[in-house]
């Protein structure tokens, strides 16, 4: 007699195989892979210039693979910051409403399993798929660079990269949860996809415009404007993620805010160790996690209270 399968594991397994065989996932991975390869090839052709500027104080050449660009193709962190939300939304926008519309939800929920298994398994499966995809891409970049350049990352760099990949998953999970939230609210998957894209578009395009407008209306001093802008940017998940990854992958960034001359006086122009960079981005991580949890908690509540019948 084989061990009895846990219904949760069965659900997750089914979701994962659904994702892997779905066209939307293959297309997304295709896009991400293509742009990543493009940016990697560009970087490998220009990395000589970075290598020439390297000194003992600033020897994080390997991190440049993720952050550098020649101006034609964006670097990996920008690509993933741009496509990550789309990936999260794409995996999340139809998880609940499609099952509802197809009538599979009542069949599954009539089986002996707690109702929340259904939505939890969707989230866990999507997160696993995202994690595997992001880590494979990240490690592929590293492996490819080690092979072609012959340099390898230091422990500090490796930690930074691994955490960068973890936080990228977290960031995508935020958008995934937003997608799941819309999929529980809206009966039509097209509506929920559009709602998700609208939020994403708002933050990528309009948010900074509005914030700029406000900043110029409130302040007339450039320093104040800058402080206001950076504060407001942290209210947007995209802004949070960008700041987080930039700090994490650029050890020379020492602070998130403006420094006065007094504060700078006597400071050594050195890079931060990983633990200090980590300290710097801790609030960002908490904010992203919180946003993610809030979205999921709302969808969870809506889902368990929703009537099964249409």
């Amino acid at each position: 007699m084989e061990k009895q399968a846990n219904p949760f594991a069965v659900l997750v397994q089914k979701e994962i195989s659904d994702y892997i065989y779905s066209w939307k996932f293959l297309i997304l991975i295709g896009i991400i892979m293509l742009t990543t390869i493009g940016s990697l090839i560009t970087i490998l052709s220009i990395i000589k210039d970075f290598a020439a500027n390297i000194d003992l104080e600033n020897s994080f050449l390997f991190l440049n693979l993720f952050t550098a660009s020649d101006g034609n193709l964006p670097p990996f962190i920008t690509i993933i910051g741009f496509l990550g939300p789309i990936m999260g939304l794409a995996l999340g926008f139809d998880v609940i409403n499609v099952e509802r519309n197809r009538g599979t939800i009542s069949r599954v929920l009539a089986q002996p399993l707690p109702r929340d298994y259904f939505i939890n398994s969707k989230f866990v499966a999507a997160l696993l798929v995202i994690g595997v995809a992001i880590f494979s891409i990240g490690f592929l970049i590293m492996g490819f660079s080690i092979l072609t350049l012959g340099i390898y990352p230091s422990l500090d760099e490796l930690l930074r990269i691994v955490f960068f990949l973890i936080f990228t998953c977290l960031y995508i999970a935020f958008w995934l949860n937003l997608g799941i939230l819309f999929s529980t609210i809206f009966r039509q998957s097209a509506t929920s996809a559009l709602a998700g894209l609208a939020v994403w578009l708002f933050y990528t395009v309009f948010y900074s415009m509005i914030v700029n407008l406000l900043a110029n209306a409130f302040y007339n001093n450039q320093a104040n404007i800058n402080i206001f802008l950076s504060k407001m940017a942290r209210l947007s998940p995209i802004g949070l993620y960008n700041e987080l990854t930039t700090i994490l992958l650029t050890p020379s960034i020492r602070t998130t805010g403006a420094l006065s001359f007094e504060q700078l006086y006597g400071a050594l122009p050195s890079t931060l160790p990983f633990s200090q960079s980590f300290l710097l981005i801790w609030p960002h991580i908490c904010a992203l996690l919180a946003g993610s949890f809030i979205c999921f908690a709302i969808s969870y509540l809506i889902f368990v209270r929703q009537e099964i019948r249409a």
Partner: protein
Amino acid sequence: MPGTIIETKELTKLYNGYRAVDKLSLSIKEGEIFGLLGPNGAGKTTTILMLLGLTEASSGEVRIAGYDPAREPMKVKRIVGYLPDQVGFYENRTALENIVFTARLNGIDEKTAIKTGEDLLKTVGLAEVGNKKVATFSKGMRQRLGLADVLIKDPQIIILDEPTIGIDPKGVNDFLALIKGLSRERGITVLLSSHLLNQVQKICDRVGIFIKGRLRALGEIGELANELLKRGNIEIRVSVKEELSDQVVGQIKSLSGISEVKVKDRELLIQAKEDLSSPIAKLLIDAGFSLLHLSTKEYGLEDIYQFYFEGGIEDGKAS
């Protein structure tokens, strides 16, 4: 004597003040095939969802094999198979994969699930297409697959919500015969809902007629018919050329099996328990009347149903 397996007491469900199900008290015996009949929107699906614990009752009690579905939904769902009215399958998966998935959600290991699944597909007549994607299936095939899906967890009770909807008449007969056979063979209690009495009466041991959230009648089809048709289920309409005399009407009334005679000008409307058209005709002709028209009409199940549906019975009392 088989015990009661499904029992509800004063079960009520309110949707924003609207009584979808109103004080439903019902008990279904083990191994019985029970038909819950009623027009669309009568509260059949709501009742079923409450039985499964998928919707909470506003008040009242439900016991499924002794368990309260609201408190112990897992135990109830383990022994109850439910086929929803709009049953959905994962379209890009095969029939077998779909039911094996259900089996595994019930904690059955994969090997056993595949074996049972294949057997069940054979039982419901889908063995040939077991490895085809469900997207290619017709409505009738989906219902059969739904039945296999319900049976794979080896339930004590199966609840079928409008199982015959959208299937052609022959398909319906086959499908219902399949349900009846399975129920008798495995001793499964079946609760099925439908709005088509004539389809399901063939297999139901008892039916409950359910209108606007209330149970209007309950019993075997025969009993229901008797209750409704106390006056008899044959209507005889006779018209004659001459004016009818009281004497001949009296004679007709005195025939055994006649329950009511209405006279209107030269027409007679007779309610009888059996077809008495020829003694009536003989009586009239012998009395010297010229028979112009004689027709009989037998009330069928459809009429019973119509009668209940049109509100012929209020508050459960025969009019």
